[in-house]
């Protein structure tokens, strides 16, 4: 274990990032920012995986990160596509404009 950063600091950072993402998804109204916050949550999980893999000297956690990055890219692609179609229809990219169904 390196002396520069400890596992507690890494996990603390990861939890802070995850919370920022979670709060962002819940409170932001702009769809692009919502998608961005989702990416932040996945990245926080990646950081946790890498830190755990590092202290255990195990590669499985680091391999997981590559797959998560691909999944995150796929997810945001679909998300942006739907946001684009919606903005073409309503002219806005605001979650408040989307209320044809009872929420």
């Amino acid at each position: 274990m390196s002396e520069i950063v400890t596992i507690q600091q890494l996990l603390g950072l990861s939890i802070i990032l995850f919370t920022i993402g979670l709060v962002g998804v819940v409170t932001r109204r702009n769809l692009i920012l919502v998608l961005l916050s989702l990416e932040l949550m996945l990245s926080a999980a990646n950081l946790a995986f890498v830190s755990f893999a590092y202290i255990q000297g195990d590669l499985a956690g680091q391999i997981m990160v590559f797959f998560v990055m691909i999944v995150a890219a796929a997810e945001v692609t679909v998300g942006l596509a739907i946001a684009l179609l919606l903005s073409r229809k309503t002219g806005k990219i605001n979650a408040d404009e989307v209320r044809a169904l009872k929420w």
Partner: protein
Amino acid sequence: MMHTLFWILPEVWLSTIIFLLLALDLKWGEEKHPLMGLIAIAGMLPLFPILFLLAKEGGSHELFSGMFRVDTMALFFKGIFTVSGIVALVLAREFGKAVDRAHGEFYLLFLIAVLGMFLAASSANFLMLFISLELVAITLYVLVSYLHTNLQSLESGLKYLVLGSLSSALFLYGIAFIYGTTGSLHFETIHAMSLRAQTLPAGLVFGILLVLAGILFKAAVVPFQIWAPDVYQGAPTPVTAFLSVGSKALAFLVALRILQELFLPFSMAWNSVLVFASGATILYGNLCAIPQTNIKRFMAYSSIGHAGYLLMGITAGVDIGSAAVSYYLLGYLFTNLVLFLVITAVTLQTGSDEIKSFAGLSKRSPFLAAAMFIGLLSLAGVPPMAGFFGKFLLVLSALSQGYLTLAIIGAVAVVISLYYYLRVVQTLYADEPVDATPIKIGTTMKMSIVACLIGIFVLGIWQYPFLAISIRSIQHIF
């Protein structure tokens, strides 16, 4: 020792069909080709003999250095996914006639979702499980928002995507902490570790609870049920049918795998949460279904209620509970599919999915009305139908573990559900139709309805062999 290829035959077969359809879709392009749907359905059918062959061989087999495992539970659930996939494709074929653009990729996406479910059923590693679940989830986001010109479909797709990705992120973060405390992503290693464990590390509890949140979201359980009514209502009807059966079965498969197989020794970490969630879900689903006027929204609340019952079996944490979950899912599969077949047939003709457009269905099509009547009774849990015995087993398993309050809530909710299901039956039979034109249905639709009705009655009357299958399906997880 059989060859590796033999055990992944269902997945290989499904991938072949997917590539075939992809090539045909490219070739036929924008024109609507009638063969596309037929090839997709015909391609699914050989999965039954293949799965049967594998089940006859039996046993639990690990492949690809422990990434992939074929056991009886995986095969049982693959059977459920195949049935729901086929019926969803039958529905998609009917539905496609009403969509104005080419719909080749509509079938393709269904098949990819089924492939993802197959892989998730056989996962023996958290990496594999996460990726297969995402394969299903991302495919479903596209399917839900498939009607590009329909604002409702786009909106429900967006809601599903945002909340679904949120739950995936929670699930993933939970996996990270499980990995951090157990030091492995392999189910086998984690299982061995949890059997030996003397103490319960706080990090593991955190991880299990986050993973649980992800699962409860996919199963649409209180407090993560908020997406279900909107998405069920806005999605194209075949997708709604697939969500309500396939996606739900997948969630409970993952719940059985993770909670029962991996973390049963740590049940004190998750059990009280599940007891509460189960009771709250049963009450919420059944009470909110009463005032609904839209049939798809109505089915959403009813399916939330059923998720609560299924959770009861997981809470019980014994083999009878898990077997009851398998049995109940089997009955729920046929029942819900019959209802969605009828709903699709009627809504495509009338162009409205309000419950009042079903008024006087018995005069317009006695066959459809009777099928819907039987389906609703089975959902409510009336004796000669499949729903009754499943509910009975679930309540029994809760009682056997001493959850008296939960069992009472379950029994009371049956009475509530009888009220709102029978109100729909009243609309079907007693009300006068707005226009009395008979409703036409295609041959494949008719065949599917008859097959599902047979399933409902066989499961309800001749329970023993199916109970034996359900018990066999969970033999490897304890």
